[in-house]
């Protein structure tokens, strides 16, 4: 290891160049994983926010996220009175596009019960939740509209009373909470709004799902007996959502990351092999002086590991600084970061295999030759 480090110090330029190349590759690998994780976190935000709930959807429909679903309003009451059910709230959304201070914005309206909250359990990061049936709205920070701002949706005036942090719909749009009555009013005035700059971008489903909290496991069976509904657990909802488009993205991203890891391995093995060839004289010398095989292996592999781990550490540090500036959400998982350390070590070993074979094959007597 002493030899490995001394040599790296002597060839600082090559060392830093290799590390810089690996840093870029590793940062992209981490970033792509983070983007996928961010996609999943965004997509499942609403499901996760409802907590350990049961979702009632239109029978045979894998809604409301993976597929459209439409239920009659009466189902909410029907669910609420089912034995074992502690709470049932209608899940109503509307994706809406509007212009604010010259910016074209998209938002997913979500009706919120007030003041007790639901169907989601979202606490505003700033300001407060809804308190009145009319004219109040809680927006996600991503819209960059400040607390207290006054907005008009479909001729209805609204005041921003609270701001959410990280609230996104499964489609990736920021969410806005308003009362069921206000959502209804916006819906009613839509034809007028359509003539202006705003417009509905998605068919309005009066009631997409009912979010139910149950105290007993039997409640699920009871709910399933309601005609015209299917019952899903939160976990099943996640699976439904991730099986679709997101799973495809996962496979694409996975393939691309694997490719980049391969490129990193090839780059590193070329560098390590070149460094080993360049020092064959010194390797022959230490062999002649009686170096053990493990000394030679530690020399070659030690350099590969030093370069990879340095690059990985820098890539992680760079990622933490740069990823928050990305337009998309990038989520780094601690578990994945540690798995990355193991992968980096493995990559070093694979990349040094050829160089080690070469180092061990150099005849010691070569050091004798003038």
């Amino acid at each position, binding site marked *: 290891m002493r030899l490995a480090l001394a040599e790296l110090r002597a060839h600082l330029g090559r060392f830093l160049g290799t590390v810089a190349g690996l840093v870029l590759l590793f940062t992209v690998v981490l970033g792509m994983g983070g983007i996928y994780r961010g996609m999943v976190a965004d997509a499942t935000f609403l499901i996760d926010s409802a907590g350990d709930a049961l979702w009632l959807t239109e029978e045979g429909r894998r809604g409301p996220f993976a597929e459209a679903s439409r239920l009659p309003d009466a189902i909410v009451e029907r669910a609420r009175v089912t034995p074992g059910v502690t709470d049932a709230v209608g899940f109503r959304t509307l994706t809406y596009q509007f212009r604010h201070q010259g910016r074209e914005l998209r938002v997913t309206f979500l009706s919120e019960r007030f003041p007790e909250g639901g169907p989601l359990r979202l606490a505003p990061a700033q300001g407060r939740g809804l308190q009145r049936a009319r004219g109040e709205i809680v927006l996600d920070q991503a819209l960059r509209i400040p607390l207290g701002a006054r907005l008009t949706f479909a001729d209805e005036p609204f005041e921003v009373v609270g701001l959410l942090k990280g609230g996104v719909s499964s489609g990736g749009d920021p969410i806005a909470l308003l009362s069921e009555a206000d959502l209804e009013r916006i819906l009613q005035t839509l034809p007028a709004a359509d003539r202006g700059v705003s417009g509905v971008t998605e068919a309005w489903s009066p009631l997409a799902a009912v979010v139910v909290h149950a105290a007993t496991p039997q409640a699920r069976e009871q709910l399933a007996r309601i005609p015209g509904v299917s019952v899903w657990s939160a976990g099943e909802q996640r699976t439904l959502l991730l099986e679709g488009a997101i799973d495809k993205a996962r496979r694409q991203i996975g393939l691309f990351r694997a490719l980049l890891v391969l490129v990193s391995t090839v780059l590193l093995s070329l560098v390590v092999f070149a460094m080993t060839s360049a020092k064959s004289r010194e390797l022959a*010398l230490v062999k002649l002086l*009686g170096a053990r095989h493990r000394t030679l292996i530690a020399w070659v592999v030690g350099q590969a590991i030093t370069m990879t781990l340095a690059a990985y550490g820098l890539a992680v540090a760079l990622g933490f600084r740069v990823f928050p500036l990305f337009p998309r959400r990038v989520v780094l998982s601690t578990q994945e970061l540690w798995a990355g350390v193991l992968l980096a070590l493995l990559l070093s070993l694979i990349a040094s295999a050829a160089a080690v074979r070469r180092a061990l094959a150099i005849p010691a007597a070569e050091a004798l030759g*003038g």
Partner: protein
Amino acid sequence: MIRIEARSLSRTYGQGPLAVKALDRVSIAVQAGEVVGLLGPSGSGKSTLLTCMGLLDVAEEGEVRIDDQIVAKNGKFHGDPATLRRQRIGFVFQRANLVPFLDVLENVLLPLRLEGSVSRQDRSRVETLLARLDLGDRLRHTPEALSGGQRQRVALARALVARPSVVLADEPTAALDAKRGREAILALRETSREAGAAVVVVTHDSRILDAFDRTIELEDGKLLEPPPGHTALGST
């Protein structure tokens, strides 16, 4: 006390009509503190003898003993040759063969590091040795910053640092001018003698013959009888 002994070594390269008998029943024995010159024309087998005694190669017939222990016999090493080299043999080459990215001190400590750890006593012993070789103020220099003679003295210190039984040198003065060459061979003689090592030096350099206690000569892989009129410094 005999440090190293070759008994009837034969080494043949190649087979059939193309076979070259590089060594033909060569026997030599070198005592502790003795400095032997190994002479002979090019292709006479000097390097082959040195590599066989240095356990870099093994002769298919005959045996090599170090400190009365058989270390190679009839084509086979007895024990691990790398370990034996590390612990028993010091090498000096035509060029100093220093590791360019290690400083003087680390170059000399290298054999100790290959063996295990370096103690504070080892370090001060090395510093004393380097001071004796006029390198006391060069410990932190890289080989690049040294003259040829200085480099060869560093190589000499490296060959002796692990207190070997044997020091084998292949043309150690070939790359030096007459004055530096003489200084180097005399330093080798003095320091190895103090360390009680047996020294074998392959050389073409007639200017340094008087530094040897005796010389032996190879021709076509065979040992010649000592030439008439041969004089040596003797061992006192």
